[in-house]
């Protein structure tokens, strides 16, 4: 059921989850367009990660419908790749072995997949580090390797759960441009969680601003500024100021 003409590849309707009687979110609607970069921004602990857990199938949602290319699914476990704040590289594997893990577990032809991974290593600036081990490299490079592995999932949708929030500001800038590459060069559809407003505005085509307790969509922004974007863009600055006001109002 792969219909390239379909605008919304992923549609979440009426999603609800509560823990011990406390509502994390309810009646949540979200739509993600093919090859778009959708960003969810909200204060820490507002329940964004719980939503992702529901999408990946780590937890079950209480209510709600997840529609994937018009197909109703209980979760996206088999359709999405997932990257988080922690790089989750296995310390006993070299970077190349780590990157090839999705291909290995997916029983893909390794002779075919190794050059694919090799190309990604070059593309993401890890050339020459294939046989290094995770403890031998910096946090930024580890996250690059996690990015290669995420691409090796070979899935159309990539879920990003604050993938860069553990990195320093300079490293984060260079990795943000790589995230953009996922969209432009690899034609991926991206759904990202972040609490960094600037990051959301630099990368997102569509940005949802969330409020917390219970988590609900406060506002939706469609950004059509061409990428790569600069912060000096007066349009972006205006939205940023507006978002900050909204968030402060919520506190």
């Amino acid at each position, binding site marked *: 059921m792969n219909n390239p003409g379909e605008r919304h590849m992923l549609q979440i309707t009426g999603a609800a989850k509560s823990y011990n009687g406390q509502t994390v979110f309810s009646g949540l609607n979200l739509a993600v367009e093919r090859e778009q970069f959708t960003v969810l921004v909200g204060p820490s602990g507002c329940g964004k990660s719980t939503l992702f857990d529901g999408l990946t*199938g780590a937890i079950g949602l209480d209510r709600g419908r997840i529609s994937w290319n018009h197909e109703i699914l209980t979760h996206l476990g088999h359709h999405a790749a997932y990257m*988080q704040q922690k790089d989750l590289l*296995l310390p*006993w594997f070299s970077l190349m072995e780590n990157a090839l893990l999705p291909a290995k577990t*997916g029983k893909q032809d390794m002779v075919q997949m190794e050059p694919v991974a090799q190309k990604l290593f070059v593309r993401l600036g890890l050339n020459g580090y294939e046989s290094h081990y995770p*403890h031998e490299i910096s946090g930024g490079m580890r996250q690059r390797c996690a990015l290669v592995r995420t691409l090796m999932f070979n899935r159309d949708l990539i879920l990003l759960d604050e993938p860069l929030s553990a990195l320093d500001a300079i490293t984060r800038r260079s990795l943000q441009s790589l995230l953009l590459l996922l969209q432009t060069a690899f034609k991926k559809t991206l759904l990202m969680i972040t609490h960094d407003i600037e990051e959301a505005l630099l990368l997102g085509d569509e940005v949802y601003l969330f409020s917390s307790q219970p988590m609900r969509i406060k506002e939706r922004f469609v950004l059509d500024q061409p990428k790569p974007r600069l912060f000096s863009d007066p349009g972006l600055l205006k939205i940023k100021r507006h978002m900050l006001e909204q968030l402060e109002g919520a506190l």
Partner: protein
Amino acid sequence: MKLIDFIPAVLVAIILGLWEGATRFMEIPIFILPPPSSIFTTAVVKAPLILPHAATTFSEIILGIFMALGTAVPLAIIMFAKPALEKTLAPFLVASQAIPVFAIAPLLVVWLGYGIASKVFMAWIIIFFPITISLLSGLKSCDPEFRVLFRLMGASFYDTLRWLYWPWALPQFFAGLKVGVTVATIGAVIGEWVGAQQGLGYLMIQSNARLQVDLVFAAILWLTAMGLGLWILVGVVENRIIKWKV
């Protein structure tokens, strides 16, 4: 090597020196407490006598270790894979350790005979438990975020086991194995005390009855060396396998 690395050796030297001095100056009879010097001499000079006994005990321990590995590893993995089975088996596992091995030693000799089998069995019972428990808790300690990653990759249980759970559990597994190999001597020696025709435990009982206390100590020295040697060997294997840093 720093100064602190020599402290254990210095301590051993002091204890042996005090022991040697005490036996000599207080004129303790050699059949009560022989001085370390005569124990070492006996251990070396009587090596042709001790060696066959040591070989028997050593093979009992080694067989016990391999039997324990062959049973503990699959059991721990099965209990990890099927939590319901863990709940069912855990009480039996604990009970098997709550029964003192000394208490069933005579029975085992009755059932399995005076030969090597009853001693191997004893060593197996003793080693089996620490390996199972440590491996199981190692497997369980795996970070759930990694589990999610493997699930999203669509990995089978077997693939997740060999690429995630097993390497994750290895440090704890080796900790359990180290405990196992050092206590293995207990099982073998008790088995030999109760009834045997060969082995260091048998030699100790025989020598004790003849007041050849230096020979008893020499046997203990050999046993200690054996346990220590196995412990070091496991450590070497561990360092060869676990090369990564977390």
